[in-house]
């Protein structure tokens, strides 16, 4: 079990959290105590965005109350505090994913921006007409559209690893595609629809053997299971704070140092430069070369507090809790007549379950669950339209879980589904 990095006063109170009960953990999330439509609020949409513990809110509040100033410029005490707060968060994040150096952690707005950054900078410098980029059928739009745009700009080719009926990648096709000497392979670590945890360690090794660079969309994995970028040998890997107890508006691009150093900058502006003349400029060192303009300072500090919180719980415990809840949910949902679950069994799945219930449209299901039992689920195409098409679906309902999800909440979800069936009896 990991221990907390006791460097931020606002969060040291959580350093003894390991072994705490679910009830105690839930008390750290004020929103879980509210009601909707006169019923307790049951949040089963953490895959879209997680809830935030008090420690994160307090850390951000404290920055605005006590340390608010711009970073990397002021020579006065408060600005130095702000800079230290932000850079300390970067170090925590680097340790959290076992990056060699904190300068490999580039702050972006979110996972989407991280992928766009690589597509624009590394992509422009390395991809040309006829080059092959391999993606998969289970990608979120954020790991499809930036590569489509790059392909349109450069004339590169896109090929896709198909998905089996059980929601797994067809790795034999992947191996075949790798023989066509791709320049880049981009894939998700964990599907936001099917919950599938892909064998990315092997996939990265195979891509490297084929001479390709790898981009891992880890938006769903870094919040939910231990991720070690050095063990994975990932070239690029990205994720967002708001899916892992942190605030919206900040995400991370991790990259190997040599790759990041060789890349041209992304956006131009303050902070990313070393010297500026009227007609030309030179660039700052990593990571700031990619961080133009005033960054999301409070958000970085909140992100750091979220990392402290997760470290105190231990990511192995986080994964263990979700495995139990997911397994419980799969059993409970399988017992509902007319319900179809998409994706693999619990051992290859994160805390995400997509399903349909007979002929009831997922949007009607989501509305009924909200009103009748106070359960928040996602309904729609989950920003993965090609995957929906693969299963010949317009939409699915999706329940997703996190550290605060209880078995009682799953029971209430099932009760809500039974109510929906009663209302929609055909």
């Amino acid at each position, binding site marked *: 079990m990991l221990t907390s990095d006791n460097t931020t006063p606002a969060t040291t109170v959580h350093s003894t959290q390991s072994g705490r009960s679910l009830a105690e953990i839930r008390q750290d999330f004020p929103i879980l105590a509210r009601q909707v439509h006169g019923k307790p609020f049951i949040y089963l949409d953490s895959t879209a965005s997680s809830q935030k513990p008090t420690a994160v809110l307090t850390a951000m509040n404290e920055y605005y109350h006590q340390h608010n100033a711009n970073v990397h410029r002021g020579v006065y005490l408060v600005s130095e505090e702000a800079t230290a707060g932000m850079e300390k968060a970067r170090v925590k994040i680097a340790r959290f994913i076992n990056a060699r150096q904190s300068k490999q952690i580039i702050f972006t707005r979110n996972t989407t921006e991280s992928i766009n950054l690589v597509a624009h900078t590394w992509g422009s410098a390395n991809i040309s007409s006829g080059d092959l980029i391999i993606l998969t059928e289970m990608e979120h739009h954020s790991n499809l559209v930036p590569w489509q745009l790059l392909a349109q700009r450069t004339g590169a080719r896109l090929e896709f690893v198909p998905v089996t009926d059980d929601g797994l990648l067809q790795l034999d096709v992947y191996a075949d595609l790798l023989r066509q000497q791709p320049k880049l392979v981009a894939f998700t670590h964990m599907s936001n629809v099917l919950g599938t945890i892909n064998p990315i360690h092997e996939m990265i090794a195979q891509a490297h053997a084929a001479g390709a660079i790898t981009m891992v969309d880890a938006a769903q994995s870094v919040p939910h299971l231990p991720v070690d970028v050095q063990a994975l040998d990932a070239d690029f890997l990205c994720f967002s704070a708001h899916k892992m107890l942190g605030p919206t508006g900040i995400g991370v691009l991790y990259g190997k140092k040599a790759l990041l150093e060789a890349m041209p900058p992304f956006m131009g502006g303050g902070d990313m430069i070393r010297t500026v003349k009227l007609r030309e400029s030179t660039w700052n060192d990593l990571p700031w070369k990619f961080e133009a303009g005033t960054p999301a300072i409070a958000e970085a500090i909140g992100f750091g507090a979220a990392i402290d919180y997760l470290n105190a719980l231990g990511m192995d415990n986080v994964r263990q809790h979700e495995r139990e809840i997911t397994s419980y949910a799969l059993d409970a949902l399988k017992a509902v007549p007319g319900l179809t679950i998409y994706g693999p069994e619990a051992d290859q799945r994160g805390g995400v379950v997509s399903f349909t219930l007979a002929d009831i449209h997922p949007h*009607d299901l989501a509305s009924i669950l909200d009103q009748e039992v106070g359960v928040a689920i996602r309904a729609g195409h989950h920003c993965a339209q090609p995957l929906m098409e693969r299963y010949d679906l317009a939409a699915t309902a999706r329940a997703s879980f996190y550290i605060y999800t209880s078995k009682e909440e799953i029971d209430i979800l099932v009760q809500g589904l039974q109510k929906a069936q009663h209302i929609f009896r055909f």
Partner: protein
Amino acid sequence: MSMDYREYILDHYRDPRNYGTLEHPDVHCEDSNPLCGDQLGMDLQIEGDRVTEVRIQGRGCAISQASASMLSEMIEGKTLEEVIALGKEDVLEALGIPISPARTKCAFLGLRVLHRGLAIAGLEQPQEDEDE
């Protein structure tokens, strides 16, 4: 506010009125709701200044399909002037339940298809999309 699925809404959903297509429609339009994937097509037969026949076809959630079915009943037999005047409040009145903000696009899909179809046929001025 509770968006309850009243029996008459479910009835329109299970058994949509005027379901199908016309062989030679004077007005045809289809559209989808990108958020939910609701789809709806509408055919109109116009004789003189009157809409004499209407057919709808589509797939999607109960709110989108039931509201289109209800709208088709409002349209048939009405004068063009009356049909052009149909607005969101008419659809909401027919539904008779509060529609949560996230579901307004579902509720108004039929109305949107109707007015877009009439505009394409040159029978009314194109409408600007309003904020919802």
